[in-house]
């Protein structure tokens, strides 16, 4: 068709020239007229619309009429069923065949849309389309909102005015929900935070304090109320068990031999006691801050003193026992 083409080019050049002149005034903010999202009725339209939902070889479960101004309400689609549309496409006055006649099926939430071209019989405008459940992509089948059905009709030529007509909604009700794994995309992923093991827990403080009290009381019990007035008063005022607990004081523990032993062997007695106290102090320092090597060094030094002074002190004690002092 060289003639048409050259004509087109000529018209392009002509209009181009016109706009080249007028461009500064006419250029405006770029606004696009894309196919509208909702309903837009141009010159293309249809009549005698019928929607049928049926399983193969069975009678129709749903049959509804629809028109451009009167979309059908929500219809449901089960497994093994098909949505069938039959209608007559028209342009301006009479039935006609457009170049583009698609049924668009859209999930409103994700804005994903797929298409099914209508089959049109010659120029009679009689068109139909069959959409089995299996042909609808899983990503649309698993949509939570009903799917939006739209007819898009258009053709080339001057002032043909395409149409975008919403004809109804479709709700797939499958026995087994469609499974769809979205494809991998490079984007930010969900955050991950490490879950720490729980910190070790201590028993309730009150319980600890009760037993702490009991342990400390045992020391008091061991030593005995040294300051208590006398044994006779005690035995009168306390039951037997308590007097038994307060062992040492009641047994008559005393420091009566201290003056005589200090007189007999003062150095070894005091050193022995001091070395025992120092040994305990060494272990306390080990617990608090010292390391093992320092502890061993200090402890072995103290041990020498303890052995030497202990010999003197214990010999003194033995001598006193053998002498039966204070009996």
């Amino acid at each position, binding site marked *: 068709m060289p003639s048409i083409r050259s004509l*087109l080019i000529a*018209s*392009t050049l002509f*209009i*181009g020239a016109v706009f080249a002149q*007028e461009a500064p005034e006419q*250029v405006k903010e*770029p*606004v*696009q*007229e894309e*196919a509208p*999202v909702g309903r837009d009725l141009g010159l293309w339209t249809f009549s005698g619309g019928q929607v049928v939902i049926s399983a193969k070889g069975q009678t129709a479960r749903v049959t509804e009429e629809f028109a451009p101004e009167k979309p059908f309400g929500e219809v449901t689609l089960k497994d093994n069923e098909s949505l069938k549309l039959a209608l007559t496409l028209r342009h301006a006055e009479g039935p006609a*065949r457009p*170049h*583009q*006649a698609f049924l*668009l099926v859209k999930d409103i939430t994700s804005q994903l*849309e797929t*298409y099914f*071209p209508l*089959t049109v019989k010659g120029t009679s405008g009689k068109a139909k389309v069959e959409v089995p459940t299996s042909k609808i992509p899983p990503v649309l089948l698993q949509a939570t909102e009903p799917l939006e059905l739209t007819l*898009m009709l*258009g*053709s*080339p030529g001057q002032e*043909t005015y*395409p149409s*975008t007509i919403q004809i109804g909604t479709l709700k797939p009700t499958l026995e087994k929900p469609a499974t769809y794994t979205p494809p991998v995309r490079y*984007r*930010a*992923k969900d*955050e*991950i*935070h*490490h879950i*720490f*093991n729980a910190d070790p827990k*201590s028993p309730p*403080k009150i319980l600890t304090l009760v*037993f*702490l009290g009991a*342990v*400390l009381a*045992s*020391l008091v019990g*061991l*030593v005995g109320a040294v300051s208590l007035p006398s044994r006779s008063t005690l035995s009168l005022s306390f039951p037997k068990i308590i007097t038994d607990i307060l062992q040492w004081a009641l*047994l008559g523990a*005393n*420091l*009566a*031999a201290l003056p005589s*032993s200090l007189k007999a062997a003062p150095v070894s*007695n005091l050193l022995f*006691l001091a070395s025992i*106290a120092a040994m*305990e102090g060494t272990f306390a320092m080990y617990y608090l801050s010292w390391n093992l090597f320092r502890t061993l060094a200090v402890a072995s030094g103290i041990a020498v003193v303890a052995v030497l002074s202990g010999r003197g*002190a214990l010999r003194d*004690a033995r001598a006193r026992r053998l002498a039966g002092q204070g009996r």
Partner: protein
Amino acid sequence: MLNSPMKVLATLSVLFSSLATCASVAGQRVLVVDEVGSQEKYSQFFNDLKDRGYDLVFESPKSTSLSLFQRGERIYDHAILLPPSSKAYGPNLTPQTLVKFINSSGNILLLINPSSVPETTRDFAREMDIFLPPKDYAITDHYIFDRSSARENHDTLIVRSPQGSPDQKSYFSTTFPVIWKGTGFTIGNSPLVNPILKGARGSYVYDTKEDAVYTDDPWAVGAQINLVAAVQARNNARLTVVGSDVVFTDEFFDKEVTAADGYGLRSGNREFARKLVSWTFQETGVLRVDKIEHGRVGFSERNEGIYRVKNDLEYTVTLSEHTPVGWKPYVAPPEDRVQLEFTMLDPHYRLNLNQTEPGVYHASFKAPDRHGIFSFRLNYKRPFVSYIDEKQTITLRHFAHDEYTRSWAISGAWVWLAGIVVTIAGWGLFVVGWLWCEETSGVKKKGKKLL
């Protein structure tokens, strides 16, 4: 990475081979595979390239001297493939050669002529997860066609310039719409392939020969149509496929069109072409890691090789982005997040980094209570920006024996501590008693029993 001798050599050779500064980080050598007469047809397009410092070498597909490699080394940094007039590009530009070119970090801009797509080109595109339509498939739209030049056959479309999304960088937006005439193709689900320019809702790609009267079987419809799409390979080499060979011609650069409401619009094609080439030839969308620092919160030492479990750690990374005028701090899109993973086999943490100042991203966290070899991993892969995958390996040690909580701070241990104290005190008193106690007559019997 920056210290690699190859990179230094490449930089030096670029510096000495020509004094002209080039806008691209990948180099300035461009091979243009074209036919006779294309230099006049695309004169503005090529001039724009020359202005930005590219050295263009024009070769016919049939030329025997045409080669992308010499002694196994790439001799061009970029290639522009205009459609050949014959059925194929010839033996020097097989799909295998093109793939090898991309694998060795070369960038390709591929233009398609809808009425003669070489089978080899289709094979090459398929390998990249791009599905070109068969011969003679063209795009049309009865809503957005140009009212002045395509009033009858609706084959020239006014396509909204790509706007990008809040979680993606877009380098392709233009003031004026793109005037399109050609075809559209579909792309696969690979994350490496991304659409740049898409069809409108009413657009469809149909067979202009078979389906001239009625479209039985369109190749693609609506937003499934890609007019321009790009592949960024894992080595950051870029391939851009343009579904038309006329949109970058002088004719389309200067075109004036009429929208549906009768208003005239200028063509945004020149700006679009410039931005598309900038991106494809790695002037834009190229990221660089300037500095990575990790350390303990409250300590000044950085990048120590060893930390302890439950240490409070912090991580800072500085990112830059290449623009045609040089390196600038990289500011991620508002709904995108630069993320840090702290991994030992699996990520124990994946944290969104906060941008403390432009291009500086920071996060702090408590090291997990698992010891082992961990790494700070910055795995930033997004459409249209070059991929970053940086890993710093460190040791996470467990508590030393003197780093645990002391027993006096644990209330449950108080009873046992008191037991030790009481035993020591009792022992001390016993020693005193043993040394200096004298038996008294009153308790003699009982004492004998006991001692």
